[in-house]
């Protein structure tokens, strides 16, 4: 009788378990490859996580959706030994930027930290040099030399390219090619300046575009939109400013802080909760502020969605949705989201424990830019200052 009861449960478990294991094997084999039919789509969907498009768009969640994810994220998961083990698995000491305090200058300013001018070290087993202006880039004069076309890129870690030699980042490759192989007759000399700083959020982009960049007189400002911009902790910089009682500097941020009832006495978690459903609003306001700044110093603003090396489907879709959200601003969009399309995750990331793109990844990003410009000649006018071409932003939406 006892054996029968054990067997009863066993017989009702095995078929379902066997089916789930078969699905698991198919899912593992599927990897990041795009789904070609409904079954593959369903498989990919079952392996997805994070908020759905609908909830992202509508910024709503039902009673249990809110409780099941947000409470846990805020309360526990990943904070203890297990979370640390899972998160840092395999990263050797000294790998992360945080292990190199000499590279970052921290202060109480709006940005909270910048790259230390002139610093040199080895991060992620790769030499890292910061120029005298605090850029992860070669040296430039501050004043724009005559006959030069300058492009300033704003972004965070993916664009900064830590772990990739300076001359192999997509920005450096692009600059080298433009100068070696001019895109048009009478093309100027090109300088592409990398203002990206690891960990920067959209609210910091505003300050970079409005305060750090203008003295360099760029012709074009490119905002790199990676999934980090849209991530759950998109608001932690703003929350830090509020907690520090710092001036929010920009009217749009001050208004958001009032609307979201952000208080200095709130814990970080509470501030982030208050901002959770305002992500799109914040991003829209920040990009509008950047547009206003770049217009004031006569630079063209371009959005550049960039992909991640992992879970490309869901995270890249999120960036694509974000770009749609910004469509009313009618900005040119240099879409690189398909740059890693056919690549295996393992071949384009730095290490198994570090998902930033490696040299191969940066080359793919550069090639995607070159392809876009070749396929859509109007980019030569918008981005590269070539005399001919249609400058209409609507024709320059390369998605």
């Amino acid at each position, binding site marked *: 009788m*006892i054996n029968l*009861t*054990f067997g009863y*449960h*066993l017989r*009702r*478990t*095995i078929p*379902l*378990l066997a089916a*789930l*294991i078969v*699905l*698991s094997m198919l*899912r593992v084999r599927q990897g990041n490859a795009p789904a070609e039919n409904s079954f593959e789509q*369903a498989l990919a969907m*079952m*392996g*997805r*996580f*994070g908020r*759905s*498009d609908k909830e992202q*768009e*509508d910024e*709503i969640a*039902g*009673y*249990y*959706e809110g*409780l*099941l*994810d*947000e*409470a*846990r*994220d*805020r*309360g*526990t*998961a*990943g*904070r*203890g*030994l*297990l*979370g*640390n*083990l*899972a*998160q840092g698995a395999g990263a050797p000491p000294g790998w992360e930027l945080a292990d190199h305090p000499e590279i970052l200058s921290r202060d109480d300013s709006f940005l909270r930290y910048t790259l230390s001018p002139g610093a040199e070290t080895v991060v992620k087993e790769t030499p890292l040099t910061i120029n005298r202006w605090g850029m992860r880039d070669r040296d430039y004069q501050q004043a724009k030399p005559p006959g030069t076309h300058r492009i300033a890129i704003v972004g965070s870690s993916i664009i900064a390219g830590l772990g990739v030699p300076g001359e192999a980042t997509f920005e450096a490759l692009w600059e080298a090619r433009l100068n070696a192989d001019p895109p048009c007759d009478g093309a100027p000399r090109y300088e592409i300046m990398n203002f990206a700083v690891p960990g920067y959020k959209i609210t910091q982009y505003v300050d970079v575009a409005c305060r750090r960049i203008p003295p360099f007189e760029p012709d074009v400002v490119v905002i790199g939109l990676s999934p980090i911009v849209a991530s*759950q902790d998109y608001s932690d910089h703003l929350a830090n400013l509020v*907690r520090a009682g710092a001036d929010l500097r920009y009217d749009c941020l001050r208004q958001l802080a009032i609307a979201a009832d952000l208080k200095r*006495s*709130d*814990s*970080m*978690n*509470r501030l982030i*909760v208050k901002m959770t459903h305002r992500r799109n609003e914040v991003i829209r306001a920040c990009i509008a502020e950047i547009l206003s700044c770049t217009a004031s110093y006569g630079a063209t603003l371009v959005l550049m969605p960039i992909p991640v090396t992992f879970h490309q489907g869901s995270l890249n879709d999120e960036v694509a949705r974000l770009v749609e959200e910004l469509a009313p601003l009618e900005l040119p969009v240099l879409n690189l989201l398909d740059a890693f399309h056919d690549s295996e995750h393992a071949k384009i990331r730095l290490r198994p424990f570090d998902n930033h793109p490696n040299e191969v990844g940066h080359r793919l990003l550069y090639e995607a830019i070159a392809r876009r410009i070749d396929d859509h000649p109007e980019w030569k006018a918008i981005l590269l200052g070539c005399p001919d071409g249609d400058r209409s932003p609507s024709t320059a939406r390369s998605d």
Partner: protein
Amino acid sequence: MSVAERNDTRDLMKYALILAQLAGALVVVYAFRIEDTGSGGRPFLLLMAGTFAAFAVHYWLPHAWKKPAFVIISLIGSYALLDRFSATALIACGLGFYAILHLPIAYWLRAGIVAVIGIACLYLRGDVLPWPEWNETAAAFWPVFGGLFMFRMMIYVYDLRQPKQAGGFMDYLTYFFILPNYYFLLFPVVDYQTMRSTYYSAEFHKQAQEGVRWIIRGLSQLMAYRLIYYWRPNLAPDDVESFGELVLAMVMTYLLYLRLSGQYHLIIGTMHLFGFNLPETHRRFLLASSFTDFWRRINIYWKDFMVKMFYFPAFFRLRKYGEMKATALATLLVFTLTWVLHSYQFYWLMGQWLLSWHDALFWGILGALVLVNVLIETRARPKSGAAAARKPRPVVHGLKVAATFATIVTLWSLWYSPSVTQWIDTLTWWKAG
């Protein structure tokens, strides 16, 4: 030899079979990134792997060591999943509550002290102290504190009225420090007496295999949930353009509940592996044939908690006014408190009260439907000695199931809508033009 000791048997073949199935479950968790929220790392995968490994060792321990071992595994788990401050503070709070509740003073005094501490904690949960650093540190602590104590402490204090139901120190620790609770803060409201009385209450391999079955069922529900969650049409006036779309959106919104059902299956299934032969948390709730049947099948632990803590005490006090009145008033009380306690739960876990009209409307309508159903059932109940009620014909039963499902789906859509206005706008989609 006690019943529990007799049931704690060993069988290498069954042990190996159970372990093999758990390994299979891990493959599924890995492949589909089950319960992965994308916040970095794979803590859930590691939690499951650690729990299954703990089971593999726990199985071979002498029976007398098993409860202490479960407590030790749980306490180690608290440090593995939480930051050091939160884990230590939780253990200190647990020990503090135990010391207060076992002081040699009157029961009502002990219960009163714990109630006052509970209210003070509720107040502190609102980040009311003017020290941001403290609020920062406590922000990770409060949700877990709530997850462990917000309901189970009520049950424990209630049961403590009868000294013979109090159990020992080890029972107390196993009741409050349950490993998966550090990860799943929204936890089934396990009953203290049920947890004690079902410990190795059946032959172990049978109950462990039942646990594995629920774990696998839970995983399949979580996978189905993902499909529903990502494919669900938006339940909003702008997105619904036909009756078919409306029905699909409403049904899929209701099916989102599979997430909670799946998690509860995983949790209780895991506890089976450590000897706690707890009952099912959900029983085919999609096939409920009446509102009382629905209430009995969905989140059974919640229903049992409300019945034990509020329905029965109210009913027996009110019975002098007649059985019908007592039933009606006790049912109304249960649904009013269900609404309040859902907000209380939300506050502990999220730090904000959830008191909205459509929430009250949802619980009010559901309470009224269950009440009407209860009264009809009470009237129709055969007197003692009379023949038992006839089983309804399949067609009638099918119609009842369909009607209950349709009503619950409609109500659920109200609960999930941001406001009553938006819900009405969605239901009358054709007016949007």
